[in-house]
């Protein structure tokens, strides 16, 4: 399985097993509950509670949701940085961490991650060029080769290696540090990068630069992105498809234009309606929904959004709405009883 080559990855990547139609990553019913102590003994934070989705080759899938919705835990599950309690991961046709599947190490060679905090994710005692060279070295390249890779990667992310290579993280600005993190992620030539709030901590003017860089690198290196963010405007700009999470579950999944122009789930609509107007003459007068997201410890029964949903009915408490089946990149599905005919909801599709 040694696939590292020093040349830029060609478009027909030898690591590509199933061809362009085969999804790069399939997550099935991923689940992770964290045990916590509560007043009444032990309780479980249902951080990720049965999440399934498909990531197609070459796309950018945006994941949005508020704090506590499980989007960061989900990212960690995908790399086995946190082991899932149950569920299945299939990377380019191979099951992850199963007999006859792909090992976690081999997976991490193909999937890399960039975190939100650009400083704490770099070793403060290592010059950034050594940090970038570390990955290729660990994965079997010689010292000299690794150094050459690191220098070329720094150049790719817009940092002159002669000027910045020998600097330590504290000598760089936030935007420069995040560029180093991106260079490090790309240094072992992954096929997929998970960007977990990677631009959220940056100033707006720097955020725009890094977004442009990410777009350029995606084309140059033939990458697939999983882009996690709470910022809907950024997700709209960078994503091809969007997955909306609420309290550990997927509530809506679809192409970005569909999600932003015809959101199906009331939570997605509330999220979109909560964006500041950017127009002082058309301010938002009433908040789309009230209250805070409930705790993921003991989430509401049935539909988790029902406690804040303006359309909640008894059926929403009684049954968990299913996220419909998706087939391809164009599928648009939402986990809401109103989207299912005969669900028992008075506003269900088909009901007059």
């Amino acid at each position, binding site marked *: 399985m040694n696939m590292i080559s020093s040349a830029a990855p060609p478009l027909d990547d030898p690591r590509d097993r199933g061809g362009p139609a085969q999804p790069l990553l399939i997550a099935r019913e991923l689940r992770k509950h964290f045990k916590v102590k509560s007043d009444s003994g032990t309780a479980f934070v249902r951080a990720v509670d049965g999440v399934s989705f498909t990531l197609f080759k070459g796309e950018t899938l945006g994941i949005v949701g508020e704090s506590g919705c499980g989007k960061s835990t989900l990212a960690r599950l995908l790399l086995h940085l946190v082991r899932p309690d149950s569920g299945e991961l299939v990377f380019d046709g191979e099951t992850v961490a199963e007999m006859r599947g792909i090992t976690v190490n081999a997976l991490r060679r193909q999937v890399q991650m960039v975190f939100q905090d650009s400083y704490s994710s770099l070793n403060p005692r290592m010059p950034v060029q050594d940090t970038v060279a570390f990955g290729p070295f660990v994965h079997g390249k010689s010292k000299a080769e690794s150094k050459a890779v690191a220098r070329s990667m720094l150049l790719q992310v817009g940092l002159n290696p002669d000027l910045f290579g020998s600097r330590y993280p504290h000598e760089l600005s936030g935007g420069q540090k995040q560029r180093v993190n991106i260079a490090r992620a790309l240094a072992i030539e992954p096929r997929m990068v998970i960007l977990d709030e990677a631009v959220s901590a940056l100033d707006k*003017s720097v*955020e725009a630069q890094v977004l442009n860089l990410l777009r350029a690198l995606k084309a140059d290196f033939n990458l697939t992105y999983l882009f996690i963010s709470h910022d809907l405007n950024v997700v709209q700009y960078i994503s091809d498809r969007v997955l909306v999470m609420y309290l550990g579950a997927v509530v809506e999944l679809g192409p970005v234009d569909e999600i932003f122009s015809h959101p199906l789930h009331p939570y997605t609509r509330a999220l979109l309606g909560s964006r*500041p107007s950017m*127009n*002082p003459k058309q301010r938002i007068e009433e908040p789309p929904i009230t209250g805070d997201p409930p705790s993921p410890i003991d989430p509401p029964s049935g539909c988790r959004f029902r406690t804040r949903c303006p359309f909640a009915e008894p059926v929403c408490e009684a049954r968990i709405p299913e996220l419909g089946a998706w087939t391809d990149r164009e599928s648009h599905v939402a986990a809401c009883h109103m989207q299912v005919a005969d669900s028992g909801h008075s506003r269900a599709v088909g009901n007059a």
Partner: protein
Amino acid sequence: MPEMDGGLQSTGSSATGSGLAAGSSNLVEVEDLSVRFVTREATVHAVNGVSFAVRPGEVLCILGESGSGKSVTLRALMQLLPPRRTRITGRIRVDGQDVLSLDRAGLRRLRGGLVSMIFQEPMTALDPVYTIGKQITETIVRHRGGSQASARARALDLLELVKIPSAAQRLDNYPHELSGGLRQRAMIAMALSCGPRLLLADEPTTALDATVQIQVLILLRKLQKELGMGTIFVTHDLGVASEIADRIAVMYAGRIVEEGPVADVLANPLHPYTQGLLASTVHGQPRDQDINAIPGSPPDLRRLPTGCAFAPRCVQVMAECRAGVPEERRPLAGRMARCIRVPAGAVLADAVADRV
């Protein structure tokens, strides 16, 4: 406790020397404020000659990126900066009082009484070992006197004012027992407890979730109008500013580079930095094109460039830009920009649009 019922004794009517017209009608007047942090290694020029005024009942948003000096300016208004390392020059007048000359007793009266502040992180701003109710009643008794019971009744009213559900029970909650949005509401209740004339808000909605942020913004906007407080609202988010501001002041490298009514500034920014900030804020740009980002990064506040601090990143830079710090120019009523490309005298709006 010494007598402090004399309260907000005025330091006289020395506002005459003020360069600001009709100084008496302003709630806040800041003139040529500079803040430097001095350490053995270096001197950080955090705020460099900032002047602005806030009228009673007006919301001024100070907009800027990290390191622009927006929070330092806000903290200077309440003297919240570490005194030993901070050098402040200039003048700050709040409701006629010269804040920089106040002694410790005077500052205690000012903070939480005449002026109060809400912060970005309510978990660190609130005291974790006291209940919400205790913290609010303490503030009320300290500034207003009266009994614990009456202060507690007022605290309950305040929690209801900020729309905390089941307020009576929440009074006895500790901060960690509340969600982020409720905690922020509790902090707002505490800030409002003594009827401040000036509310300082330092990114109060930045740490909140999107659906909660808009609730708190709308609440703040409503309370500010109802109570008629002058408000200075610091934010890095153009969207937040457009939801709450009457006027905005854009800061860059410790200077206000542009100021004006919020709708005018957003629709027709004069300063290249404001223009760049608007263009680089992701908001419905076409997905197949690069965002028009400002190149480079903000300057090192230990070594500010001579002249316009934005010159090294400015696409319209000219040689004169580096000669000296651009003067304030006021080409339109209520508008100010520090850029030499902006016409110095008053002109018509169309003409300005043509020039910049």
